[in-house]
């Protein structure tokens, strides 16, 4: 078993028509095209995603690219379990980047059934807004929105595995001249118990692949799962411990050139001019390329390209944004909330009346969060080669299908003249969605100016200064407590670029609730950051919930508990984390515990964090307990890793991370002034999954949102100091 990537130096030579077949449940033409793309000689290809070879090797084609979530292994587990495949002979390959792999039934499932709303805002623009557009364009090759296992796995992989198994049984029944009901399957074999006869899947595949497959095959009973729900080791890990995993940064091609780039420091600015001479004098530098808003140096390697770029003194305009700073943004957002009318609002009940009622206790607090950067460990690197009017690209992006389209538009050629080779990603977290990958347009422009393939590498400085940051945002929260200490009304007014209502699930039962958005844009290209808007809203809401508990003179856990419906999944998750963390047990001197509960991406997560503030003022998280209800779990080990990773990334961001603007430009430039959490500051993380039959929730993102508020609440418990602004950085004791 292992992940076999398509040899990226080889063109389409391996694509020989094999066992083509008809499929009833999805669009025939698209699926046929997909079958053609993945078929090898003498192999049976089932649906779009499974190929069984004569030697029993089962190849599963993943339309998604992994950036470490383990979801590709999860997809393989789902298909192989329903297929009853021999796991030791399962391999995964990346599906070719082709519209055939983005099919309408899955698009519908993603957009209409799996999520309680239509397309999430951060995917809009990728998919268009009307359903017709979604069905045609929703690139199921998007890896994002914690959706891979939920959408492709549930609706694609399990169906493909079960349908292929049914076809193998039918074929075996014919050959053995027995009734299907007498046959069983195990480990890539069909068995006839009565006669002791057995047929390998590899012997049956070519014939079985010619059958019309059922759109609604019989699924296994969950009690019979051998792979789903088991902590199967990830298929991609062996290549990640010996240096053989090839990321976009690592692409090597004959005659490869390397370029690096500097864009206008103030986003929105243009390149006014540059004298190329200082770079051209450096050995290895071939060209200085001027783009509309950037200058790039093309060279024989990264080092000459970098020193060539550094030798230049380009002049850029400021796009009229020179007055913009983080403090001016914060002040303008706060003023907008105070004086303007909201652009979007939702909620229930009469909040103004609840807040104005006599005898209530009113609370009001202002919160603010800065821009934060994805800081994926692999800086952007994308390779492009223009040859004979065709464009070939190699790199790691969250949606290779749509990225191909973006590249075609930038090159002004038709999409079918563009081939995209998806590579493993060294982190992504929302940064590599095509709407935010300026590097695609840049590398296409650069590739036009050289007959050789060119790898454009962003320096870390470029990466930090030109991110698609989680937006800077401000919020004012108001609530009224009635005489029984219950919340009578609540309002959240927040200013940022994007309306976050669809991702902001208020889980508590209150008589009146209002969520109001004030649109506020800057020159920055705000983007989705792991957990998207649930992140900052989780911080506002769960911190303010703690403030209300204190005002009501109640325990923060019990106060939340009494605003949740008894018997609800939310209450069960909260009880579980309180119990496991020993919520009421005594603590070391100076330590405090904080609790927070957030639902995002259909998954309910509660954390308890034990924290203290050191003498130097630095907050320290000592231990995190997390309880998670995400419905059925495909791979518990991978699931635990995702929640743990989300918590640590969130701790890093709330402790130290901030992108700030001065005179319209980003101040930070590398890890010395944008520090990330290191191992020594990482707490123990104890994750527990609830037994749950709820529909599948996401896992990549939901660990993030409760982290900042649980830590802020713990610091309040330890010191009495309430934190309403991120990052926490230094907090001298109150």
């Amino acid at each position, binding site marked *: 078993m292992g992940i076999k990537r398509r040899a990226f130096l080889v063109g389409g030579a391996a694509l020989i028509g094999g066992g083509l077949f008809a499929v009833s449940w999805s669009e025939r033409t698209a699926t046929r095209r997909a079958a053609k793309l993945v078929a090898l000689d003498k192999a049976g290809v089932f649906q779009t995603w499974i190929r069984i070879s004569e030697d029993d090797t089962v190849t599963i084609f993943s339309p998604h690219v992994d950036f470490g979530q383990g979801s590709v292994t999860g997809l393989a587990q789902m298909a192989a379990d329903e297929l009853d495949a021999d796991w030791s002979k399962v391999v995964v390959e990346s599906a070719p980047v082709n519209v055939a792999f983005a099919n309408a039934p899955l698009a519908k499932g993603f957009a209409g059934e799996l999520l309680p709303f239509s397309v999430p805002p951060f995917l809009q623009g990728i998919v268009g807004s009307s359903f017709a557009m979604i069905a045609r364009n929703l690139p199921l090759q998007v890896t994002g929105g914690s959706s891979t296992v939920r959408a492709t796995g549930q609706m694609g992989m399990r169906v493909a595995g079960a349908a292929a198994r049914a076809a193998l049984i039918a074929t075996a029944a014919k050959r053995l001249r027995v009734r299907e009901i007498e046959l069983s399957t195990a480990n890539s074999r069909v068995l006839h118990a009565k006669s002791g006869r057995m047929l390998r899947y590899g012997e049956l595949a070519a014939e079985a692949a010619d059958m019309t497959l059922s759109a609604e095959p019989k699924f296994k009973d969950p009690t019979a799962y051998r792979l789903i729900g088991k902590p199967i080791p990830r298929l991609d890990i062996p290549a990640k411990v010996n240096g053989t995993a090839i990321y976009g*940064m690592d692409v090597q091609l004959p005659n490869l050139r390397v370029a690096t780039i500097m864009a206008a420091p103030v986003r929105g600015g243009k390149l006014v001019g540059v004298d190329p001479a200082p770079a051209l004098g450096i050995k290895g530098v071939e060209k200085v390329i001027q783009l509309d808003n950037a200058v790039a140096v093309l060279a024989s390697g990264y080092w000459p390209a970098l020193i060539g770029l550094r030798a230049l003194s380009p002049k850029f305009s400021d796009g009229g944004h020179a007055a913009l700073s983080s403090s001016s943004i914060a002040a303008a957002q706060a003023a907008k909330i105070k004086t303007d009318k909201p652009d979007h609002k939702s909620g229930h009940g009469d909040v103004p009346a609840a807040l104005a009622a006599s005898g209530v206790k009113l609370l009001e607090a202002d919160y603010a969060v800065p821009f934060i950067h994805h800081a994926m460990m692999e800086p952007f690197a994308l390779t492009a080669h223009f040859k004979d009017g065709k464009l070939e690209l190699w790199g790691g992006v969250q949606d290779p299908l749509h990225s191909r389209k973006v590249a075609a538009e930038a090159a002004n050629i038709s999409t079918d003249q563009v081939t995209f080779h998806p590579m493993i990603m060294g982190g992504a977290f929302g940064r590599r969605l095509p709407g935010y990958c300026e590097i695609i347009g840049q590398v296409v422009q650069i590739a036009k100016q050289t007959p050789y393939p060119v790898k454009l590498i962003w320096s870390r400085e470029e990466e930090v200064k030109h991110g698609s940051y989680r937006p800077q945002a401000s919020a004012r929260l108001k609530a009224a407590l009635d005489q029984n200490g219950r919340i009578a009304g609540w309002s959240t007014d927040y200013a940022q670029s994007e309306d976050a209502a669809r991702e902001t699930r208020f889980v508590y039962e209150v008589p009146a609730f209002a969520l109001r958005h004030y649109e506020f844009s800057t020159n920055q290209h705000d983007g989705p950051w792991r957990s998207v808007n649930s992140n900052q809203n989780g911080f506002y809401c769960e911190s303010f919930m703690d403030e209300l508990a204190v005002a009501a003179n109640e325990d923060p856990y019990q106060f939340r508990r009494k605003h949740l419906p008894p018997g609800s999944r939310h209450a069960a998750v909260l009880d579980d984390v309180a119990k496991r963390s020993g919520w009421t047990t005594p603590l070391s001197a100076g330590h405090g515990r904080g609790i927070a509960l957030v639902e995002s991406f259909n998954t309910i997560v509660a954390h308890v964090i034990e924290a203290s503030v050191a003498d130097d003022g630095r907050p320290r998280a000592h231990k995190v307990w997390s309880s998670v209800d995400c419905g059925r779990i495909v791979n518990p080990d991978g699931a635990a890793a995702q929640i743990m990773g989300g918590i640590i990334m969130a701790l890093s961001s709330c402790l130290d991370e901030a992108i700030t603007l001065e005179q319209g430009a980003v101040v930070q430039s590398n890890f010395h002034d944008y520090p990330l959490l290191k191992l020594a500051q990482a707490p123990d993380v104890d994750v527990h999954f609830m037994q749950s039959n709820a529909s599948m929730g996401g896992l990549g993102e939901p660990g993030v949102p409760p982290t900042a508020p649980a830590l802020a609440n713990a610091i309040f418990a330890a010191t009495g100091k309430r934190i309403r602004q991120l990052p926490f950085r230094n907090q001298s004791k109150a």
Partner: protein
Amino acid sequence: MAIDIEVNAKSYLIEADPATPLLWVIREELGLTGTKFGCGIGACGACSVHVDGEIARSCLIPIAAVAGKRILTIEGISAPNGTLHPVQQAWIDAQVPQCGYCQSGQIMAAVALIKKIGLPSPAHIDEAMTNICRCGTYPRIRTAILAATGQAAVAVQGHS
């Protein structure tokens, strides 16, 4: 200027600007791409290699400074027959990597730490393991180092 270096027990004569960082020679001249570029200022450790047995961040070392020295990269730590180094095996057993981009550097740092200390304590690990991981694999890195040195057992986590 031609510079003699030894990488993973092979000798190379490198023609390069003497200021070129070792990282780019390893990656672009020798084609050993397991050593990664992360920051270029020695802050993240993705480019960690061993120079004469000591951990070093190769993005900051000019090639001229390692003339005649022995370099070891992630590609050179398994046995010649392919048997994984105990640290690599522990990384698989504890299912450490997520995106995996920083893990070559993390493994090189862990191998150097164990070589130096023998049985590192949690405090040694905290002090020595300063490479950045954005995916948040730190708790599993701790476990894997303890496991590689026989100080902890690891099994793939089912429900923890």
